[in-house]
């Protein structure tokens, strides 16, 4: 286990001031993209331009992109109940080192966050140990069992910004209909992990050529598509907003695209691994390539990229899912699903989306800043004056090699170890305070 950084208990998130000089300021919310200075005073973006007084620290951002602080709306921090995998302290440090100023924690903790007490605990632990903003989500159903609605109103009062049974999928369509209808009262976004359990029963990898060769039970695309189609119909019926998580199948992308043309209130997200890898990676039964939904085929990758390009998919996120190495070092069928992602995702997105000219920088950053902020009703994700001073500085041309042994995350379960990536975050700034930078790490 990597020792925690000495600054573990250091969590000074009090507002601060900083002057960022001469970077390429990109604010997708306003369409701004220009070389400029940016000033944060007492934790808020200032409208003042020009040189501030000399007491304010200066960062020379020449050659760097100055973006709104990145937001990852799909992260498993594993606290409470999974401290062998990750804690809020370690997971948020991984996030900061990946360039993220805000994360949305999934509620499939142990116990699950299906009531206000667990949310209160998570928020308290975040307040004590996190160096970035941690937003919470609550369960849709009690114990994520898909049967009885969780106290969604109380969860809302306790501060959750979304509900989801992520990792599980409500199978009972009537329960899902009531959940969506009920959540509408609080304007809460419902996030769905789309998986029909009958169609995917026993499946551990994509059903296709490789599952046929390897003799592993298949988890077919149709198991995702069926629930995406259901969610579209239920959203139309109830008028509630629904967000389909981690799309993996080409047909699901098509279904979302068609629904959006009818103005259905649906949004969708894509993960780095589904863009970067296919099921062929499983040839040697390496459990670092086992995640849910599974890696699929080249045609699915292309559909996801097309969906990102035409904004059918407006969210990029990691599905950061840490597991201890001893949990992953077992027979493929027995290994838990999921991989870590916070410390590699930005570099992978630069490689697969910017370098491959699928998106330009403002388009890509929108999916990591203002889009998740709008869906979750967060007052951030923009560099407009008066907004919280959450800023990520990115060096778009700084090649580096992934080394899992250097992760801040407690876990090492990445399929990207050893990958060469073209760029990365250099400074993560929360409320005007640099919480991490590439040169000094978390040292104050």
């Amino acid at each position: 286990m990597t020792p925690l950084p000495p600054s573990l208990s250091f969590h000074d998130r009090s507002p601060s001031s900083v002057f960022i000089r001469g970077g390429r300021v990109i604010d997708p919310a306003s369409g701004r993209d220009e070389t400029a200075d940016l000033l944060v005073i007492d934790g808020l973006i200032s409208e003042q331009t020009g040189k501030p007084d000399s007491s304010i620290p200066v960062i020379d951002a020449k050659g760097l992109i100055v973006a709104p602080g990145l937001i990852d709306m799909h992260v498993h921090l594993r606290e409470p109940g999974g401290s062998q995998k990750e804690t809020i302290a370690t997971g948020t440090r991984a996030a900061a080192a990946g360039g993220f100023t805000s994360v949305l924690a999934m509620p499939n903790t142990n116990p699950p966050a299906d009531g206000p007490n667990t949310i209160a605990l998570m928020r308290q632990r975040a307040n004590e140990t996190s160096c970035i903003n941690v937003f919470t989500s609550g369960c849709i159903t009690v114990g994520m069992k898909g049967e009885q609605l969780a106290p969604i109103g109380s969860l809302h009062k306790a501060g959750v910004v979304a509900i989801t049974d992520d990792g599980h999928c409500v199978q009972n369509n009537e329960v899902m209909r009531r959940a969506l209808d009920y959540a509408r009262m609080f304007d809460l976004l419902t996030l769905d992990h789309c998986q029909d359990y009958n169609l995917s029963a026993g499946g551990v990898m994509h059903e296709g050529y490789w599952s046929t060769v390897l003799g592993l039970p298949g988890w077919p695309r149709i198991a995702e598509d069926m629930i995406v189609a259901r969610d579209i119909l239920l959203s139309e019926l109830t008028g509630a907003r629904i967000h389909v998580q981690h799309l993996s199948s080409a047909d699901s992308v098509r279904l979302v695209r068609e629904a959006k043309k009818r103005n259905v209130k649906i949004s969708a997200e894509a993960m780095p691994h589904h863009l970067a890898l296919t099921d062929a990676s499983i040839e040697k039964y390496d459990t670092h390539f086992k995640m849910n939904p599974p890696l699929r085929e080249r045609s699915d990758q292309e559909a996801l990229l097309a969906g990102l390009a035409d904004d059918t998919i407006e969210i990029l996120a990691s599905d950061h899912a840490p597991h201890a190495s001893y949990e992953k070092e077992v027979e493929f069928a027995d290994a838990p699903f999921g991989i870590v992602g916070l410390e590699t995702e930005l570099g992978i997105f630069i490689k697969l989306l910017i370098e491959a000219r699928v998106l330009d920088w403002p388009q890509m950053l929108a999916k990591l800043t203002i889009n998740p902020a709008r869906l979750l009703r967060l007052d951030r994700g923009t560099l407009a004056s008066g907004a919280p001073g959450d800023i990520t500085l990115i060096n778009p041309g700084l090649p580096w090699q992934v080394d899992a042994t250097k992760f801040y995350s407690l876990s090492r379960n990445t399929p990207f170890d050893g990958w060469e990536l073209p760029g990365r975050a250099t400074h993560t700034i929360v409320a005007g305070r640099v919480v991490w930078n590439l040169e000094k790490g978390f040292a104050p």
Partner: protein
Amino acid sequence: MSAWTRKDLLTIRELDRNEIELILQTGRTFKELLSRPGRKSNSLEGRTVVNLFVEPSTRTRTSFELAARRLGADVVSIDSESSSFRKGETLKDTGLVLQAMHADFVILRHSAAGAPGFLAERLKAHLVNAGDGAHEHPTQALLDVFTIQERLGEKRDWKDLHVVICGDILFSRVARSNVWALTKLGARVTLVGPTTLVPELFSELGVTVAHDFDSVLLDADVIMLLRIQHERQRRSFFPSVGEYVSLFGLNLDRFKRCKPGVLIMHPGPINRGVEIASELADCPNSTVLDQVQNGLAVRMAVLHLLGGRENPASP
């Protein structure tokens, strides 16, 4: 013919034709040796072979045990009922224990596809896959092609052979290993069974997928029947065993329309009256018992090639 270079035998898929031929040729040497009374090999003398059968099996385990003993090895068998598995020891830890005990060979039968590769990576011992989930069962395929060659004559070109494999292909490691072995040797292979158990995806493996048993058996040189698992019915792969038998059971009526010299193969254990009519299991075209016999010679060949002394028959 090239020499053997692999530490383990995990799959047929990774072998090339020369390697398969080498095993078959070595198998013939051992079969000849076995036919002479009193002759024994000392190829594995002083070596320890561990039979690790995490999934129950009688036939394959016994065959490997006998093969190892005939090569002069010390043999230990551990089965799924043994205490460490019951106590939840991981496969990794079992492997480390075997390593510490200086096992020279590990024969692994496991319900999880990929388990042999997982263990082979962590062991210095030679690993032989004795069947992993629905993935592969390489020695079964080797003994099957050995039997076909023996029965039809070595001079018969594989290119002229049409092998029909019938049954629960989707869940069958025997079918997968046979597909690789037969196609690598050059035979034409047709997989036949219900659409639910023989998905079209299998055609990407270089074989023909069919669902009408009656039309494909007409020009078959070999019909390989697989055991049908009754529990599949519960997961709605087919409506009933009765319906399965009517569509895909090899009965006398169907047999009459086959080529006269057709070989009827079955890896066992047989469900008499289900995938095969009882009379046909015992008829001269049936190779069921040859397969068992040849399994011994082929498994001796595999163990010998992986890590035996150079001259298998030396006293």
